[in-house]
């Protein structure tokens, strides 16, 4: 068996940065990693959105980027989730927060107790949601206050600065960085044999990792097609602020699409996502000159891996940055690659398994985003019509039907979004099950009532004791800088 010895990563964006650091940190020193950090790919990093899931902490650590590094070297802030405003024609507003599994009371999922009592709002029972609305933050620790311990947090980030510590980590960890563009890709028998760069050199490798963004320059050269979906444009700008805002994005539905404000350390990032046909309205609403803008087509490549070339990030799939889905998929793509780094030049087994997993993952993430549109049209505009026209996957139909019928959560193998994400989403969208779990009736009504009265009060009281996100971050960064972390 010939082991693989040379890996080449192509791309200059967030996906390439994260891939290079993670591979360098985890692969054996016998594998040479070369990173062609080119500037030639179309910039689409703004479509990664501005929120990273709670799993980012562990992911980053395994790529040699610990949280203190991220906080000191970038303008990343903490995130409890995303506040949706005016969503759909029903003008729903809720905080789609991160959370560990919701409590099971008397053997019954928490939400059944709510419906038994005719309580429709889940949010008062979710500490991160309340903390997000109040703009406060503190790290949840397992041994810390009980109420906080069930919370989870992610990050709010600017993709153009978030990537920097990954580059530093990759360089420190032996990655050979070539600053050049790919000029020509030489293929033979369904594989890439070499890359010719703008600086004249040619690179050969056993495995090529395509992080070149939506164009997927390597993968598409091998004939892999994209499944066409909706076209979207986006504009991103940063407005400098004195105080750090809430640990929560605010995403407002508009006729042309949506607009999202993300508080970072020194600025508020504004991302406007819209249908290309409604650009003038979107620009007017954006209200600031765009620092980054772009257009993409949502969807995925028919396969993410073919021959000796595997695509990571937008080169493999593009999801709308409505939720943390884009960052979640990027992290999971890199993690999947790490578990399937070929152990020989015959990588057909790895390729098949990677494609199987990546196909399932995409479907499962896509239906979470798609669920946001299983609602009455916000407006009869190109954006909303196109979003609602995409036929929902059968799995989504099952999830919604079961929830509406009896509050049961249908789950499939190893989904990227968890039951609690779905529970919060269903409630946020105002879905009501026709029945609750009858076992909830075993708890005396007065007891349930008392529990439901007390919990939101306890949460509200606790949130009052938490520091403002701004103050917490300032102190944390001062402390980290003193410790020279």
């Amino acid at each position, binding site marked *: 068996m010939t082991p693989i010895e040379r890996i080449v990563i192509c791309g200059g964006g967030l996906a390439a940065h994260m891939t290079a650091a993670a591979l360098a940190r985890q*692969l054996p020193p016998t594998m040479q990693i070369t990173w062609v950090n080119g500037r030639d790919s179309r910039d689409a990093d703004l479509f990664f959105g501005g929120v990273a899931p709670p799993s980012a902490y562990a992911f980053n650590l395994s790529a040699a980027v610990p949280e203190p590094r991220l906080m000191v070297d970038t303008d990343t802030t903490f995130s409890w989730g995303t506040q949706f405003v005016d969503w759909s024609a029903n003008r729903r507003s809720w905080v789609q927060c991160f959370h560990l599994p919701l409590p099971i009371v008397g053997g019954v999922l928490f939400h059944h107790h709510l419906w038994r009592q005719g309580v429709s709002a889940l949010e008062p029972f979710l500490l991160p949601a309340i903390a997000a609305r109040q703009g406060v933050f503190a790290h949840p620790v397992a041994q810390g206050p009980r109420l906080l311990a069930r919370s989870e947090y992610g990050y709010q980030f600017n993709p153009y600065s978030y990537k920097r510590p990954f580059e530093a980590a990759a360089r420190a960890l032996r990655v050979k960085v070539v600053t050049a563009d790919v000029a020509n890709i030489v293929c033979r028998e369904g594989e890439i044999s070499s890359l010719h760069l703008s600086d004249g050199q040619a690179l050969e490798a056993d495995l090529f990792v395509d992080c070149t963004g939506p164009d997927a320059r390597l993968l598409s050269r091998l004939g892999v097609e994209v499944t066409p979906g909706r076209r979207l444009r986006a504009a991103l700008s940063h407005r400098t602020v004195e105080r750090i805002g809430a640990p929560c994005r605010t995403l407002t539905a508009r006729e042309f699409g949506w607009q999202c404000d993300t508080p970072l350390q020194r600025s508020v990032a504004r991302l406007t996502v819209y249908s290309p046909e409604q650009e003038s309205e979107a620009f007017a609403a954006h209200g600031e000159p765009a620092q980054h803008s772009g257009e993409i087509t949502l969807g995925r490549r028919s396969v993410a891996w073919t021959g000796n070339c595997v695509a990571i990030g937008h080169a493999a799939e593009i999801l709308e940055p409505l939720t943390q889905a884009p960052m979640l998929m990027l992290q999971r793509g890199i993690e999947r690659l790490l*578990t399937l780094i070929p*152990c*020989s030049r015959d990588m057909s087994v*790895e390729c098949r398994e990677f494609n199987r997993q990546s196909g399932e993952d995409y479907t499962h993430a896509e239906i979470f985003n798609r669920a946001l549109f299983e609602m009455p049209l916000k407006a009869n505009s190109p954006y909303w019509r196109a979003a609602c026209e995409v036929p929902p996957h059968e799995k989504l139909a099952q999830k919604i*039907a079961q929830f509406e019928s*009896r509050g049961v959560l249908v789950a499939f*193998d*190893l989904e990227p979004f968890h039951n609690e994400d779905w529970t919060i989403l269903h409630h946020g969208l105002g879905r009501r099950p026709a029945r609750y779990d009858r076992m909830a009736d*075993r708890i005396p009504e007065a007891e349930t009532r008392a529990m439901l009265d007390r919990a939101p009060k306890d949460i509200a009281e606790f949130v009052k004791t938490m520091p403002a996100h701004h103050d917490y971050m300032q102190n944390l960064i001062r402390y980290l800088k003193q410790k020279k972390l």
Partner: protein
Amino acid sequence: MQIERICILGGGTAGWMTAAALSYKFKGLPVSIQLVESDEIGTVGVGEATLPHIRNFNSTLNISEPALMKATEATIKLGIEFCDWGRIGDRYIHPFGDFGPNVNGVPFYQFWLRLRELGDSTRLDEYSLGVMLAEMGRFTNPAADPARVESTFRYAYQFDATRYARFLRKYSEDNGVVRTEGKVVEARLTATTGFVESVKLDRGEWVDADLFVDCSGFRGLLIEQQLKTGYEDWSQWLPCNRAVAIPCETRGPLMPLTRSTARAAGWQWRIPLQHRVGNGYVYCSDFISDDAATEFLLANLEGPALASPNKLHFKTGRRRLFWNKNVVAIGLAAGFLEPLESTSIHLIQEGITELIQLFPDKDFAQSDADEYNRRMGLNFERVRDFLLLHYVATQRDDSPLWSHFRNLTLPESLREKIGAWTTRGFIVKYEFGVFLPPSWIAVMLGQNLRPRGYDPRADAAPKEILVQNAAAILKSVRAAAQNAPDHAAYIRQIGAASDTAPLVAMRSQAP
């Protein structure tokens, strides 16, 4: 409209487990539960070995472990010892537990594969406390703290399933379940919907219910005989269709293990209880006659037989629908997979758990049944693939049965799984299904499927560090195993020893 009356048909393991769980769950709610069984119909008493999940079932019902063990002649089960499966003369243990800890997200066995290439000959088993305890015949309660090596294994029981049913019968009756003696002779279906309205017993009495749970065994009194649900035959993959069972006297120390020995036309089980040993030969009637099978089993018992042979016929497969109209089939009425991995009671437990989660009301929403059938279908299929693995991961071809498996076309999902393993020791994972990666690893390695490569991440650390870490794990596993008490002593220590003396064969019963 909520369900007020539940009728359970059949009082075997499935029937009484269902009655116990439903009576506990519905305590205090206006639901009556009636169980119809006949003393004249024998129960099969599916598999006497269980999976660790049964402990959740029992503890949810607040059943005391020593009381249960004492009442059912139970012993501890740390896993299954498989003999002669890969090749004649081979043996390995499939434990309930891990093979070493994960290191930076990489499972330990990947490092072990690298150590093998470096010339180390330590068995992977030696990194598994579950296997070590089982081999030494020792046991201690697993630790809760995940940092301790004592937390890395789980356990189940080997017990007398008939006594377990009896134990649960008392539990159920104490919780208000009404047991009715009788045989079902007739059923009345609603003309418009085809729902079962009531069943008539041999003494003329009619029993009405909103929901019927069919635990009537292979024949599926309601699910099949009345509703004609249909059966999906899996004999093409799992051709064994007969079993003969005989208990015998115990010889040797009490081991915390079930044993399965591959034979020319099937396989033989050995299940040690406190007072006797259960034995059986599962075989395919195409390859051996019933008499020859019985004779073979009798000739391969460790002690004198304690009863005459009990013969069973079955067809592996599953009911096309587990839940059809207002009938839910649980146990053998739902399907049958040979007891090679002790899944029969587990599938009963899953059937009950899902029924409670998706409990219908009188409208019987089709979506409830659909979701139940989806979940149970997945459970059955994944168990099937795991069972099939035992038959195909083999080098044996010494009899027509084993040749049959050599020429078999595998289900796609299993073929991919085996391919990913043999290429690089990769386990294709799922979330819903009973057997986790360590189980697959145990069987594949135990039956000589050696990966050609391993996860390159196992090469990330220098060899010296790897060797050092492996030695430390080995040491902690050995120490923990040495510290554990003997299995029989443990049973006495927790007050779970039964009052029955070891059974001795009477002269007239001896073969």
